[in-house]
């Protein structure tokens, strides 16, 4: 896991490059969901608030809402996920990225670092 990644309690991750933020879901989240079969995602241009539900991720047995970890404007959506949603399972931090967002303001103060998120994941796994 990269040191630059930050996490939410709802199992999203972000990496930051200036004002551009890439968003995905964590390895723990994808393992809980099982094989991803479909995503419902917003279009570029959509404005998001922190913790706003922006889409749905579906496996055969479960469907989870996706919550925006940041406030901003969607600049890109990973089109590859339309035909290959399984990328989220195989490469959740790389090719399985979900959104790119142009940040409004700062990152929320309560985002977790690597170690803090690891605790959350471990607690969830019990």
């Amino acid at each position: 896991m990269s040191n630059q990644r930050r996490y939410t309690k709802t199992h999203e991750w972000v990496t930051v490059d200036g004002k551009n933020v890439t968003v995905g879901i964590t390895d723990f989240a994808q393992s809980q969901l099982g094989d991803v079969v479909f995503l419902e995602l917003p279009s570029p241009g959509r404005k998001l608030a922190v913790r706003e539900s922006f889409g749905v991720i579906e496996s055969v047995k479960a469907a989870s809402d996706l919550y925006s970890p940041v406030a901003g404007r969607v600049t890109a959506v990973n089109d590859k996920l339309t035909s290959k949603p399984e990328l989220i399972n195989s490469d959740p931090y790389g090719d399985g990225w979900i959104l790119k967002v142009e940040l409004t303001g700062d990152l929320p103060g309560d985002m977790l670092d690597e170690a803090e998120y690891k605790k959350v994941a471990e607690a969830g796994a019990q």
Partner: protein
Amino acid sequence: MTEPLSFELSRRSASAPRLPEADVTAPEPSQVLAQDQLRANPPDMPRLSEPELMRHYSRLASMNYSISEQFYPLGSCTMKYNPVVNEVAAALPGFADLHPYQDEDTVQGALELMWRLERALCAVVGVERVTLQPAAGAHGEWTALRMISAYHHSRGDNRTEVLVPDSAHGTNPASAALSGFHVVEVKSGPDGRISLADLESKLSPHVAALMLTNPNTLGLFEREILDIAEMVHATGALLYYDGANLNAFMGICRPGDMGFDAVHMNLHKTFTTPHGGGGPGAGPVGVKADLVPFLPTPTGERTNGHLKLDFKRPKSIGRVRSFYGNFGMLVRAYAYIVAMGGDGLTQASRDAVLSANYLRKQVEGDLEMPHEGPCMHEFVASAHNLAPHGVRALDIAKALLDRDFYAPTVYFPLVVPEAIMVEPTETESKATLDAFAAAIKEIVAEARSNPQALHDAPRNLPVGRLDEVAAARRINAYLQGLSDDPVLRWKPAPK
């Protein structure tokens, strides 16, 4: 064995069945209707002779498990015997051939049957009136919540929340949301029963209702139900009963007496109407006096022995389906109640509780029991103890199929990991229960010695475990326009 689809058996040359000719002087549709109104291409439907058709469906039937042949210990489903005489009753022409728009004077028998069924259900659950309109359990649940919503609005009260236990069936929050409510979960305590402390913290003037099933989805009676009812009513909220588990205590106690204001029932569970492979059922809802004005329209009324339908109900939530209810299923349930009587229904529940406790005892050495007994009419075990062998509840379920049992409910309630919910019902013999317990023992032993055998189960059925992920991906590909295989229907081969 496999059986082709009717579409695959179809032959273009097969002739149509012989049907009456019109034998009147009249134009053809094409002579009267505009070209644009007419169907351009005939539908691609199969052509089968009657012998081929009957063979086809008989072979399909042989690929099904059913309660007529196998034990179905499905928790919260009450798969009890479907009395065959009820089929005879429902098929009587005096019921089957009635048009719903016949004059009320010509259907007094039907209206009387519905009236008597309503009275009987009121007696069983302890309410004032019952609507027989809802076509299914989930439908009834939604109907009840709409009445609860209408009740609060009529008092000028805008309550936006419904409380649902974390152990509840998924329909509870879905129905609540579809009735315009925001759903708030209430935690269960360590014994699986609803936490009064958490309930207290979540009750407020915003809460319209608490939805509960009793016994709960773990098969345990909510001992503090009277306190719960008092707490809920003290804040002006109502108490809704999910009748999935009513088979636990007919003639022993009544939801109405516990303080429930709306009592939902499933005729296809407690009252033996057959499941039909997934319907039709019926989900009547009983109500206390405060909710009576909001009942769906029409209600049945009886004055001096004469029955009529009352459409003048200004506060009613309206209609929840066409006509009056799944009448054919109401006939079956009524026949069951008449045959059983109050004494029979009471004994049924007593035997259901006895059988569940007996079966629980027989398997408690093999599976984990997350909660202490006694249970009511069902119990929840867990396959968690087999995790070290890589065996899950699903494997147990599939292995049972191979041994000619239908599997219990698995992965529900969500609060128990690797849950296996077992409800034997009162219509299974002790010998059957013993055979099931023996099968569990055998499977658990196999889990320890040869878990792969369980992962490969079922092997004795027309198909093995189906790859649902691949299927979902194929559907996805079709919906994205990347594939021609629609998956959700047969399609003719491209020419």
